[in-house]
């Protein structure tokens, strides 16, 4: 009797497990690909970016053209988004539109829930639609089964510094271009009681990989992607040299002694925004804080009351290896918009997504926010309508940054596995940690052992 009951209970448990897991292997549908865009309806949009005020601005502009489509945006923290979106999509209660980036193989993870957007792009931009979208964004947002699952809203680039012009002017220092000039600048900045280069390499955040990548590009352009995709080793001569430079940067006073106190956000961001640090390494998204009003908001968010904006400028990452290699930028699609294949509002969602990503008016909003590089080719910020803290100094610098970013040939994290990114972070932390008693070669060996080569974008 007991055995029978046990078997029955086991059968029920197994059936329940099968029921729950059955959905795991089912692939996404494309039922909505043929639905025509609609001019009315309601759309829910979930994402970790943009911030709610920016999204509300986008929606407001969209509603000027499509007043009968109501869009409701819900913003999540990065990690919360990843943990919320999957069960929501699985349960059929997911949003109509959701953010989908190329990072960490997301097109394969969430692509099965999204409709193929290639026909929408073709209908909107014509048969040559692929030539009208910048970078390698289409490739990055296409899943392994060849479905284009997310229309890019914009891209981002990294591999350069932002500096506080006011601090450098006060210290009588120049913008560094190589290792020696960086050390000299830091001495002058330290003399006026400011931090030279704010860096948050603590915790498990992957921001330190940007600095590693920039130094690697100074040592040997192309080395980073080769190592990330298994065509070079993280512990070869180049890898060891990168780690040696990081160690030297700390001992020579370029990297602050508190670099391991916390991650880039909030540590380094707050130091820079408070006006306590002269330089910080951030990507193109930081350009938005050059704006006359957004700089105040970001300084207030960093804890400054009644702030006076400083002049924030981008500059190339110095040639720290001294090998004469220009610091090449790296970037990829920041994120795109996907349409839930089980949405009941696919028509309205298509109108919204295509307006945001494929129409000049929508993309103009993205460009004017100077937060993302517009995905649609030919769209540039309308500078007369953008208020900067110091237009004369900042506009040419940001325009050059925009132009150089568009030429970036290397991806930022798209072709680097999570394991490899984590291994870079750990190696950087060990190099910066004065209590770690390991040789650079040994740290690089451990980094290589912990890394997993990526196959993304190699074929």
């Amino acid at each position: 009797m007991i055995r029978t009951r046990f078997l029955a209970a086991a059968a029920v448990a197994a059936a329940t497990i099968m029921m729950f897991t059955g959905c795991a292997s089912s692939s996404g549908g494309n039922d909505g690909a043929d639905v025509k865009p609609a001019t009315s309806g309601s759309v829910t949009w979930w994402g970790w970016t943009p911030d709610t005020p920016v999204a509300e601005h986008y929606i407001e502009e969209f509603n000027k053209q499509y007043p009968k489509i109501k869009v409701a945006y819900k913003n999540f923290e990065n990690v919360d988004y990843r943990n919320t979106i999957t069960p929501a999509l699985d349960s059929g209660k997911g949003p109509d539109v959701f953010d989908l980036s190329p990072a960490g193989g997301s097109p394969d993870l969430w692509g099965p829930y999204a409709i193929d957007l290639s026909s929408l792009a073709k209908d909107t931009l014509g048969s040559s639609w692929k030539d009208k979208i910048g970078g390698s964004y289409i490739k990055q947002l296409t899943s392994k089964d060849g479905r284009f699952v997310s229309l890019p809203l914009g891209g981002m680039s990294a591999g350069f510094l932002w500096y506080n012009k006011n601090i450098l002017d006060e210290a009588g220092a120049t913008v560094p271009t190589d290792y020696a000039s960086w050390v000299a600048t830091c001495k002058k900045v330290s003399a006026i009681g400011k931090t030279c280069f704010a860096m948050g390499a603590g915790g498990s955040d992957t921001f330190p990989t940007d600095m590693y990548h920039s130094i690697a590009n100074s040592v040997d352009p192309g080395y980073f992607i080769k190592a990330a995709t298994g065509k070079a080793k993280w512990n070869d001569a180049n890898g060891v040299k990168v780690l040696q430079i990081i160690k030297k940067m700390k001992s020579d006073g370029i990297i602050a002694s508190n670099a391991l106190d916390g991650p880039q956000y909030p540590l380094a961001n707050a130091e820079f925004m408070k006006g306590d640090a002269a330089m910080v390494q951030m990507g193109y998204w930081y350009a938005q804080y050059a704006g006359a009003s957004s700089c105040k908001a970001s300084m207030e968010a960093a804890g400054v009351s009644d702030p006076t904006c400083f002049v924030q400028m981008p500059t190339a990452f110095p040639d720290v290896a001294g090998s004469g290699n220009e610091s090449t930028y790296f970037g990829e699609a920041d994120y795109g918009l996907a349409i839930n294949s089980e949405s009941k509002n696919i028509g309205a969602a298509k109108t919204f997504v295509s307006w945001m990503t494929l129409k000049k008016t929508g993309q103009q909003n993205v460009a004017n926010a100077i937060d993302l590089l517009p995905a649609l080719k030919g769209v540039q910020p309308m500078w007369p309508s953008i208020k900067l803290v110091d237009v004369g100094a900042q506009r040419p610098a940001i325009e050059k940054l925009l132009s150089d970013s568009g030429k970036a040939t290397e991806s930022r994290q798209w072709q680097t596995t999570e394991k490899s990114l984590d291994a870079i972070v750990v190696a950087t932390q060990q190099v910066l940690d004065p209590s770690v008693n390991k040789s650079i070669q040994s740290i690089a060996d451990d980094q290589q052992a912990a890394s997993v080569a990526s196959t993304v974008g190699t074929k």
Partner: protein
Amino acid sequence: MTTTLDRSVGSDRKRPPAREGGHARRRARLLPGGLRWILPGFAISVGLIYYSIVYSGYLSFFDWRGGRALMTPVGFGNYMTALGDPVLWTALRNTIIYFVVVFVVQVAGGTLFAAAMHSNVRFANVYKVLVVIPVVVAPATLAPAQIQVWQSDGTVNRVLGALGLSGLEQSWIGQSTTSLLVVVLVGCWGAIGYGFILIYAGMSQIDPELIEAGRLDGAGNLRTLYSIVLPSLRPIIVSLAILNFITALKLFDNPWLITQGGPAHSSEFLGTMIYSETASTDRNLGYASALSILVLVIAVAVSIIMQMRGRERVARSSTTRKEVEDV
């Protein structure tokens, strides 16, 4: 053996029929009502918790990123990967260190405060509130303050500098050698209050006459504490040990909020490891499930061992007491 059997048979035979009928009636009347009462708890514990455990065990044999991603069977691959991962061993080492230090400090600190509060000190209620506050404040609320205290330009370094001990100033959170210390100290700070609550309640249960008898026999404060109070608190201390071990095994909030397990995984715990696997862009849910099952196995095994040891000691001490009484 035979005698026992005879007695039980005899007692059954002597049971009046009316009483048997009463049993049957009571069972018929009470059973459904009782079931109704326990059904919500039963459904939650069996339906959700045990289902989750079984499902985690099932997932641990797959390489799976969640949702509609393909589930690839990997057998014991996730377990082998976990056992070969140096971060797991660092996390286990940190768990043991955290458990031992926090438990010792909790029992010592809790006993000290509880003994003091039982000594008719003035403003006892104020002290009780002060000791218990760290227990009720959420770690997420305290974490920014803890970071402020321990970071390079934080309170600890400033105090050390003011005391002329600048040589001891360091990046407490940003060093592999001190990040775990910070997490452990923050844990101790919160744990003492919890230990105090239980030990204070336990001390209230001790018969005052027992202590008085000890005093009459010439026992001083320390002797009374060691020979009368602490043996009476043994069940509470065993419970605290089990609870502390389970807390250490699933520790997540403080290490994640203060150090995120870093630098270089030096303050990693099993809880932060599991979270990292589920929250990363990779979302290794199969691997995270394997880690969860390992935590479960360790927790159950250690709890059973601790309880068995506790019972053996109680049995030994009762036997000894009985022997003394017989003599």
